[in-house]
């Protein structure tokens, strides 16, 4: 765990208390069975916004707290632990695109609404089933046309940050914007979003690297959610092994399982370092691209193994819907495939390093 300042510790404790008491995995089960149209509980989102979480990376003049990315990561990690369904990551990323690339006017118009939770934002970038950095959506005369695949939190979003061939645009939900459900195995909100001559406003700031800068943030914050998931799978698996008795011994006493847990513990340590390294890079402003690549690649690698081993080490009951551990597996693969598969990220790492 990174060394936190007082403000960060407070924030983390607040998030941990809230998820534990108000938004445990049971809350996700409720969302799953009640199927609210947004894909999350609007009440929970309202509470989160009231606690100021939607504005953590938004500057104070625009209604945010500007606590920074490490702080945002701490909250998202806690949400990951209990699989809390919310548009917090998506909204934070949309806000960061505006912070980086918006004009003063755009910032003044949108950031306060995102910070207050009044608006839910999301990134609508990829056009195919995998993140490949190719964007063909076109804007002519202020009207955007193109189709975006598997947009996270599309059902609740009213503001889309859209990657077109020539840059990023803001598009409001409304005329020319239509959704088609894409229900993935994590059963969260995903949709194909079609823009058919929708009114679009360009983000003209942020320079040539704006798109990549936003993607780096998406990778790091997603990795933070994955870190929470991996930590939780590890913790519940360890607990299970300590309690379950087989052949008259607790499973935790079997050396083969001890060594596998030691391996997972080492992997988890590396994942945490990589993710916190990414968050700290964002706060310091140095080496972000590389740190983002390392953070998401490590998150992919470790959560992949952790979610698989979590099931195996639970044995049969881990395969049942009644137990939570399967949810982490399903969500893990969706996040793994978002904003860069492991192989995409290795390619990017090599390119950044010049080989």
């Amino acid at each position, binding site marked *: 765990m990174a060394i936190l300042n007082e403000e960060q510790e407070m924030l983390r404790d607040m998030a941990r208390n809230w998820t534990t008491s108000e938004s445990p995995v049971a809350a996700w089960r409720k969302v799953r069975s009640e199927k609210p149209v947004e894909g999350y509980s609007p009440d929970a989102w309202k509470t989160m916004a009231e606690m100021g979480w939607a504005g953590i990376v938004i500057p104070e003049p625009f209604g945010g707290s500007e606590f920074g990315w490490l702080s945002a990561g701490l909250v998202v990690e806690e949400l990951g632990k209990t699989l809390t369904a919310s548009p917090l990551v998506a909204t934070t990323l949309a806000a960061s695109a505006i912070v980086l690339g918006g004009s003063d006017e755009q910032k003044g118009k949108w950031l306060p609404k995102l910070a207050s939770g009044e608006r839910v934002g999301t990134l609508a970038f990829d056009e195919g089933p995998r993140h490949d950095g190719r964007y063909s959506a076109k804007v002519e005369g202020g009207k955007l046309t193109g189709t975006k695949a598997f947009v996270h939190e599309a059902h609740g979003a009213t503001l889309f940050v859209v990657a077109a061939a020539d840059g990023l645009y803001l598009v409001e939900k409304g005329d020319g914007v239509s959704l088609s459900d894409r229900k993935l195995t994590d059963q969260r909100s995903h949709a194909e979003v079609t823009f058919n001559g929708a009114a679009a406003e360009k983000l003209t700031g942020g320079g040539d690297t704006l798109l990549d800068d936003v993607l780096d943030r998406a990778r790091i914050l997603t990795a933070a959610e994955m870190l929470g998931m991996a930590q939780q799978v590890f913790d519940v698996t360890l607990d299970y092994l300590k309690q379950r008795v087989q052949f008259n011994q607790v499973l935790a006493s079997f050396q083969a399982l001890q060594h596998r847990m030691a391996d997972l513990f080492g992997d988890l340590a590396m994942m945490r370092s990589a993710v916190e390294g990414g968050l700290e890079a964002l706060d310091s402003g140095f080496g972000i691209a590389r740190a983002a690549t390392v953070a998401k690649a490590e998150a992919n690698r470790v959560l992949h193994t952790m979610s*698989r081993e979590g099931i195996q080490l639970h044995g049969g009951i881990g*395969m*049942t819907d009644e137990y939570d551990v399967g949810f982490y597996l399903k969500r893990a693969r969706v996040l793994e*495939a978002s904003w860069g598969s492991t192989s995409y990220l290795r390619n990017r790492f090599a390119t950044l390093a010049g080989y």
Partner: protein
Amino acid sequence: MATLAEPQAASTDDAFREEVRAFIEKNFPPELKGKGNALASVEGPTQEGPAEKAWREAMGARGWGVPTWPKEYGGGGLTRKQAHILNEEMAKAGAYNPIGGMGVMMFGPTLLEYGSEEQKREHIPPIARGEIRWCQGYSEPNAGSDLANLQTFAEDKGDHYLVNGQKTWTSGGQWADKCFAIVRTDRSDKHNGISFMLIDMKDPGVEVRPIQMISGMSPFCETFFTDVKVPKKNLVGKEGQGWTIGKRLLQHERTNLSGGGSMARLMGNALSDIAKKYLETDENGELADKVMRDRIADFEIRWQSFLLTAKRAVEESKAAGGVSEISSVLKKLGTKLGQERAELLIEIQGLQGLGWEGEGFSDSELSGVRAWLFGKATTIYGGSTEIQNNIIAKRVLGMLDHQ
């Protein structure tokens, strides 16, 4: 090198091949071409239409659904070579074996070995005709891999046993007609106090609750026995022999889980063919993503090597006689590779390979996701990989525990 030819055997085989072709020609309904085996699926039964029924009955009448079982109990009485020819010809014609399931894969071979003459005459023919579904009553809530810890008790009541207790992971319990179960008949002896018996699922006192799995399906049940009367003639072998018979059955299960049955079903098309559908190819027709191409080749080389191992195990056990200890190795390897394949498949398809339901996904994409999730069970059931590792280390390699 010269191979010794056996001209007479060969001509007999040729004649048999002709017989099979003619049979298929006459009996296999063309509308079923390319369809799978419904009854054998652990995912649950599908409705049997008139064509399916006719085909099953035709195969059942010949005993060709269980081609190597003895004719006297309704089997085909074929040699392994003939059974192979039968499979080849069915594959060529797009036909399939309509008779399968746990009765065929596990219970039948075990009963043929341990059952009484009366039991064989009663139970084997309906299995051979594909009329009866069997389920397995092994695991209990506190006896997963640790079967010696069984609690379900069968009390001796003279002409019958009175069975009480709870089983779990009963495959297809909600659709099964009968259950082969291991139950405790003696509380004072952990291993020798277990017996193998047959329970009618329609009997009063049998209650079944499907378990929902992470794949969204419910192929297994919790099964509760409350004062269920089981006639003494349904005891297989002797009282106390359940541990021996039960383990033998597990060897058949392992062989099926890895070598032929489930694994092959899980596999389907070559990964590379699917990859060519989902990923770009370059001017040479190769996958443009060289890293993914390397990983697919890595998998397919090991899969090839696994298939060769399964084949070798069959040859060796034939040479040695009986089921080989290598079944543990095959179960461990085959299930691991199956899971690897499912993960690779998802990665090849990207988010398109993670669809749960609704619009935007093809049937094969959706079933791929369910199979990926369900496949996580393959390294847990039938003796988990950890248990197989213990068996290999101790029984095969002679690495003994601390005494």
